[in-house]
């Protein structure tokens, strides 16, 4: 029921209906005690400083032997991958027979301001990967990097290809030359040194302000009008509050890592040119030769396809594929397409590649290089 569009309603009716709706909505909200997120059962199997490695409880008897490590971005929190039982990429993959791990980067504090990208990639991520390898008894694991976590995963895979069996880049920015997203335009005008020197730890609210500026009228007004239109529906209220919790749960960014990321990636675009260095080592994307899946969202306003797609061409993998889904950046995590299209496609691609090396010829790894536009068309048709 939407009070604003009911036909033949006069003003007193409208006011009465609105009052009843808001009264019910107030009751729903006052009954809610806690907004639960990240509820899929898991245990912390490794931690280092603020970083924690989560291992999710498998839901099938014999999961795939090659585990999947999900690497979320440093911006916002990893639990968008497990927002609620019916909106959980993690649960979906568990139910499809995968052994899933995820990294929680935590909230950097003052003493983390000097952490560099090298510390994140060759330190925390490398140690987490080693831990997963030891725990699962496999030499190589599957890496699923999400958003900027995807960028970090790509850096890791290029520097440590011997540890990665499969690489999935999930709406990850790699080529920053595009001006399709305002973020790319704004970043070029920022005096990054001044910002990092002043803040040390870049406040999460500073970044959030930038995200809200992408479409202020929709994100600061229309979203809430939409919420009030459905305030008498308990499920809608719960989902809305979960998303709000995630959106404004923004950890700060370690200053030095932020400095290098903004300058080398957004301003100089060194990563795609194979000229970026971390820890004194140059990142050569040609070192990525493992099976690779590049996942993008057609209407992504944060990471345009132009920023992700060039990676498929830049690496030397022969078994590689690009998929574009007709949804937005956030829709990839929590939209209906996430559960019904994105997860099944990831599982379908990953499963045959998630067995030990000796089984590889038996199951037959499909060596395809699909044209992403064709893929997009087929997704739209479906």
């Amino acid at each position, binding site marked *: 029921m939407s009070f604003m569009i009911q036909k033949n*309603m*006069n003003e007193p009716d409208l006011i009465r209906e609105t009052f009843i709706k808001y009264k019910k909505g107030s009751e729903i909200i006052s009954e809610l005690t806690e907004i639960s997120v990240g509820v899929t059962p898991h245990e912390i199997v490794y931690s280092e400083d603020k970083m924690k490695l989560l291992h999710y409880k498998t839901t099938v008897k014999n999961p795939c032997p090659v585990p999947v490590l999900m690497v979320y971005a440093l911006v916002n929190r990893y639990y968008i991958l497990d927002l609620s039982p019916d909106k959980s990429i993690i649960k979906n993959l568990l139910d499809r027979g995968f052994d899933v791990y995820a990294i929680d980067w935590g909230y950097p504090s003052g003493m983390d301001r*000097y952490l560099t990208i090298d510390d994140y990639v060759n330190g925390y991520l490398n140690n987490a990967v080693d831990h997963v390898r030891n725990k699962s008894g496999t030499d190589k694991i599957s890496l699923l990097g999400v958003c900027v976590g995807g960028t970090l995963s790509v850096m890791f895979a290029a520097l440590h290809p011997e540890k990665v069996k499969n690489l999935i880049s999930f709406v990850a920015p790699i080529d920053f030359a595009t001006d399709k997203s*305002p973020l790319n*335009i704004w970043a070029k005008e920022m*005096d990054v040194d001044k910002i990092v020197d002043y803040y040390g730890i870049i406040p999460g609210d500073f970044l959030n302000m930038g995200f809200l500026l992408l*479409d202020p*009228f929709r994100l600061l007004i229309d979203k809430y009008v939409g919420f009030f239109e459905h305030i008498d529906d308990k499920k809608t209220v719960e989902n809305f509050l979960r998303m709000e919790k995630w959106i404004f749960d923004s950890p700060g960014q370690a200053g030095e890592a932020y400095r290098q990321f903004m300058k080398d990636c957004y301003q100089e675009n060194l990563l795609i040119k194979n000229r970026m260095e971390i820890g004194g080592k140059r990142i050569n994307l040609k070192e990525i030769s493992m099976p690779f899946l590049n996942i993008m969202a057609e209407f992504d306003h944060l990471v345009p396809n132009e920023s992700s797609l060039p990676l498929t061409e830049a690496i030397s993998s022969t078994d590689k594929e690009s998929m574009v889904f007709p949804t937005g950046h956030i829709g990839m995590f929590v939209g209906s397409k996430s559960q019904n299209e994105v997860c099944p496609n990831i599982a379908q691609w990953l499963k045959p590649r998630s067995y030990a090396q000796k089984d590889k010829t038996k199951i037959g790894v499909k060596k395809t290089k699909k044209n992403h536009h064709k893929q997009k068309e087929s997704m739209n048709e479906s």
Partner: protein
Amino acid sequence: MRMDRSDNESQNIFFFPWLKAWEASSGHIGKFPAIGPSREKTEKLMKGHPLYSNLYSVWMDSVSDFANISLEAMKRMNDKTSLMDGQNNPDKYKEIYNNWIETYSDTFKEFLRSAHFSGDMGKFMSCLIEAGKYNREMLEENFLKPMNLPTSTDIDEINRELYSLKKTVKELNRKINELSQGK
């Protein structure tokens, strides 16, 4: 004096005779022990003037830009509503709202992704941070240091030292593990 071309020198030329006259007279009486000799305090305060002037100037540029773009959005909205028929009933509320949000959202998005806005925002951020940095320095020098409390610079030095020590410890641990595993 133009606000957007302000600098220390021109202000000093203007204010110094007045400052010296004040120091030689009633300035003797009104001293503030917590913030040091009044002469230093005034000089330091004056260094902030160009920063605040610049901040004010770029802020006003932004206000002007947003006023113009709001006007543009209003015009576009007016064009749309003039095409709607004159019925005034609740059925139309949602339609008007949808038109309003669409018009304003599109107009502002167009503006926000322009090079003009991007450049202005860069300048604004830069001036805001310079003014903030100045404020922080004044606070630290005038209040924290006299009270023997650590400043953000002191804490940053400790953080840098901690970071370096942690890194060394991790590296040593890694080497010990390698040696113990006979690598």
